[in-house]
């Protein structure tokens, strides 16, 4: 029998009073894969993670972690957890805390080696509250993996990290994956999800709005962009384009053409430009970025 998936969530609902944080969420995270939960603030990412970690009850649906109920104590040594912040006593010294976490496991990683790997060796005797935000994040990540878990939950692992520390974290996640560890992480960063994840689950309003491998989400579709004077009438261009194409000005002075972007479409657009005396600046053809997909799915308004 094949091992059950790292995580299997079906129809998950979580309410806090009248607020519905998670509304009918369904997705699966495969064994040995990195799955990124991507979504705006308040999308229900942390609630979902905390349910998987066995911290929270939920109102409906089923959740299986490595095939078990998330509250099953048998999961504790098998699952590593990195909360979004805190969880370490302010007076605890970094090295001391990591050794304590290691002592709960029979075959832990060497705390000293892990500290060195994450650039924390010189801070081993520094109390947690005196570490920088980035150092606290890295210690927290170290604590999540020191027990050599099968599955790790990382809640915004690179929030507040400088580019070097962010890179070091990415490398470690990639190494975990290579070693056969399953990873579920939440993030706001598109590039992080695109770079690290085998599978991206985009959530908004407590629901999955899209999921797939990064390349599946961005698709093979190309788009054509250029800048020109504001307020060009696009009707004539639209008529000239093949069916299923779209053209719009967004934002002002920036034009976007989507559809079967090929040599002919490019010729059509430039012919239209020539006919209207338009000099298209910065004309380029590119793949849709994950950010385009994300904003398209989740909208552009700011979230609380």
């Amino acid at each position, binding site marked *: 029998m094949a091992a059950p998936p790292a995580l299997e969530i079906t129809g998950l609902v979580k309410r806090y009073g009248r607020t519905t944080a998670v509304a009918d969420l369904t997705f699966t995270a495969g064994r040995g894969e990195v799955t990124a939960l991507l979504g705006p603030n308040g999308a229900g990412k942390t609630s979902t993670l905390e349910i998987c*970690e*066995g*911290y929270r009850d939920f109102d409906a649906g089923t959740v299986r972690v490595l095939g078990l109920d998330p509250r099953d*104590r048998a999961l*504790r*040594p*098998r*699952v590593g*957890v990195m*909360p979004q*912040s*805190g*969880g*370490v*006593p*302010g*007076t*605890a010294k970094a090295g*001391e805390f990591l050794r*304590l*976490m290691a*002592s*709960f*496991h*029979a*075959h832990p*990683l*060497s705390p000293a*080696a*892990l500290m*060195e*790997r994450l650039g924390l060796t010189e801070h081993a005797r520094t109390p947690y509250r005196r570490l920088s935000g980035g150092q606290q994040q890295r210690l927290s990540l170290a*604590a999540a*993996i020191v*027990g*050599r*878990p*099968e599955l790790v939950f990382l809640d915004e692992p690179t929030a507040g990290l400088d580019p070097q520390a962010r890179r070091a974290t990415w490398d470690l996640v990639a*190494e*975990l994956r*290579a*070693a*056969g*560890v399953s990873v579920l992480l939440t993030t706001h960063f598109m590039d992080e999800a695109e770079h690290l994840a085998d599978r991206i689950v985009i959530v908004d309003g407590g629901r999955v709005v899209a999921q797939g491998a990064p390349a599946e989400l961005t698709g093979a579709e190309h788009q054509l962009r250029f800048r020109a004077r504001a307020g060009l009438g696009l009707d004539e261009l639209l008529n000239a384009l093949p069916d299923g194409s779209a053209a719009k000005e967004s934002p002002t002075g920036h034009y976007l053409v989507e559809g079967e972007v090929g040599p002919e479409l490019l010729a059509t657009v430039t012919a239209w430009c020539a006919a209207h005396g338009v000099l298209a600046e910065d004309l380029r053809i590119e793949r849709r970025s994950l950010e385009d997909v994300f904003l398209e799915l989740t909208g552009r308004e700011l979230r609380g």
Partner: protein
Amino acid sequence: MTVMDLSPRPVAAPLARMVAAQTSYELKAMLRNGEQLLLTLIIPVMLLTVFSLTSLLDLGEGARVDFLTPGVLALAVMSTAFTGQAIGTGFERRYGVLKRLGATPLPRSGLILAKTLTVVLVELLQAVVIIGVAFALGWNPSGHFAGAVLAVLLGTAAFSGFGLLMAGTLRAEATLAAANLVYLLLLVLGGVVFPLSKFPAAFAAVLELLPISALSGALRAVLADGVALPGAELAVLAVWAVAGLALAARFFRWE
């Protein structure tokens, strides 16, 4: 760059090792904390020394140190099991430490056991220091130590129960304020250094029902008066212990 074998090998350590590690961590944290040491050692030793060597307080018949030592021992138990534990656990809860420990293989029962062991070990340290100072001041105890140990255990259970109840229900700042206020009130009203006989009789009868009065009364009955088993005081302590632990078990919130 260090190469590490990150491949999964998830096995929990044996429970005894987890509890030992957590206890040793908590002990270090407690002994490192300056405010905590002030409460657990400095204030009790100071009260014992100052009031033994001066006649600032009217302590009735007998050697002053014989009256003071049992009260100060009771105060030491309260400071560790109640005040220290309430404040420490309250902030652990506030900073998500309890929540995080909940995700480790250390079970909650193991955490509670480690906290209890820590309290008992700190109390032992306090007892050694306070009794040493008391002997130096000419303390002359009598009675069976077994009765005193029983009183201390019941007192520890009662104070731990209420300390954890406070830590697990109030905000950390509220716990900090309330635990210190209760400490101060019970220090003054609980027969620790001021004899209850100095209060009006009706008021004293009520004060005798406080856990600190019951503990200092029981210790004084054994160590100063040579009573084998101070039944009334032990019964009062037992009621507080059951009530405190039951309420903590019912209402404690881990986050």
